[in-house]
């Protein structure tokens, strides 16, 4: 299925939380490459993300059993939203879907996807420490790559680099 077909199917099953589909510009030829996705994506309401993932996973024509990636992005300092980026993959049907959710920076909370895809667990931990997004109901919300006592969320665009760490100067 190409992106348009996936979107039609999502609308047909009335996927929870589906806001809109984005096809930002004229897709170039390489967009036909099945290994590629993301130029066209669906925007999903972050609060209903779990239901959306569940619908994608359990619908037999979508069959998105594999959560490939879950990450976030901070588009700009003055942007008021984070993006949460999810890549889904169907092993049987051989198609991909990119999902984007907008999270307000002042209240970056969304439910965890761990219950639907266990693989999301570590990705969410990474997201949480790098961007300060809280995944509600996460079973193990510790830092994963950063030390436990790290201050700040390094991947934010407004992050200020520390000048020292435990007395070690890093200027």
């Amino acid at each position, binding site marked *: 299925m190409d992106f348009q077909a996936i979107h039609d199917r999502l609308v047909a099953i009335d996927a929870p939380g589906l806001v809109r589909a984005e096809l930002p510009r004229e897709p170039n030829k390489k967009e036909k490459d099945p290994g590629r*996705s993301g130029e066209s994506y669906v925007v999903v309401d972050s609060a209903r993300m779990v239901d959306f993932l569940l619908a994608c996973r359990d619908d037999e024509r979508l069959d998105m059993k594999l959560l490939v990636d879950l990450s976030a992005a901070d*588009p700009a300092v003055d942007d008021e939203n984070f993006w949460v980026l999810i890549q889904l993959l169907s092993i049987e049907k051989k198609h991909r879907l990119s999902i984007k959710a907008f999270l307000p920076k002042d209240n970056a909370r969304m439910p965890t996807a761990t219950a639907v895809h266990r693989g999301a667990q570590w990705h969410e931990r990474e997201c949480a420490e790098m961007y300060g997004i809280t995944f509600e109901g996460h079973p193990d919300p510790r830092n994963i790559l950063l030390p436990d006592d790290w201050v700040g969320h390094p991947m934010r665009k407004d992050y200020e680099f520390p000048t020292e760490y435990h007395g070690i100067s890093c200027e």
Partner: protein
Amino acid sequence: MVEAQKYKPSMQLSDESRVLPSGEREFMLDVSTADLEVNMGPQHPATHGVMRVLLRTDGELVTGAQPHLGYLHRCAEKIGENVEWLQYLPYTDRYDYLSAMNNNLGYSLAVEGLMTGLEIPRRATLIRTICAELNRVASHLIAYGTYGLDIGAFTPFFYAFREREWIQALFEKICGARLTYSYIRIGGVFNDTPPGWLQEVGHFCDVFEDKWREYYDLLVENHIFVKRTADIGVISAEMALDFGLTGPMLRGSGVDFDLRRDMPYMAYGEISDAGAFDIPLGRGEKGTLGDCWDRFYVRVAEMMESIKIVRWCLDAIEPGPVLGDVPKVIKVPAGEGYVGIENPRGELGHYVASSGGKVALRCRVRGPSFTNLAVLEDLMPGTLLADSVAIIGSTDIVVGETDR
């Protein structure tokens, strides 16, 4: 699809039960008939790098495992947002340093996807394929050798390194580097192959096919090795999908999926249409489907398939340009895109977003080792200490990639 196997959710070691108050000199106070907490790593031969697994053991029996990452975190994604598009290329070499060609390829493909009107010359595509597949062989040779080390067999390691040295020498001839190549770049490859290089690759393929049989007999069919790896660390297909495993980890569980065939990029569609290569799958030959032996077998069998792909490319390659029309300072039009390619360890995904400038807005790397490692928490409880080493080895992680 195999029969779904019931598995338990992971086990966490609670904070109260942490071993010792730090700084206090203790005299084996925690040695009792109760559980013993052991740090496997950060410096431990079985963790293949600086990774730490906190084990809770009851005698030799592991009752809980908790991987701790981040010892090799080098902020690759943050750097990606701060350097120019082409300058980031050398950083891609460093996350999975055993298959740097594939990393270059993944990043290049992701950026090229955003650049409208950029055509990759066919010769460049085929050279990229040859390099990526040779690199896959080299990477799997390491997986083969180090897994032998984990199980306690030294000699296969040296045999594997003998052939890997040859591949590295080939890469050295083509780009001057032996580990971090930065050879495949945005728009094609850095330079054309030196004279005679393709013939030498062909010669390597001939020799390797003989040697591969030797590897197979030495370790894959070794009775002790089979006893140590069969029925250990069983990942059912259901569990593999739930954890988002990819690559040999997924195929070891019997799921027939390979990005090179099913979602082809570059010339792979053509190659797989020509029927040039197969996808080896775990079949539960020696034990349960999805055990360590199956994963190991998939890797070893994949080396031969890579050689077949290389041979196909050698037949198809023709003279021509190797670098597309790329400006010195690349400006990528605004947009975003995700590209997943089949790295030796699974799906290596690059999500790049551009706002139209000289640097990326977001440069996300989805390392397969990172995702594959997450199963440890579930696999290790209930196994013996030696089995846990076998399980870590069978995930074939590169810590540079888990930590990035």
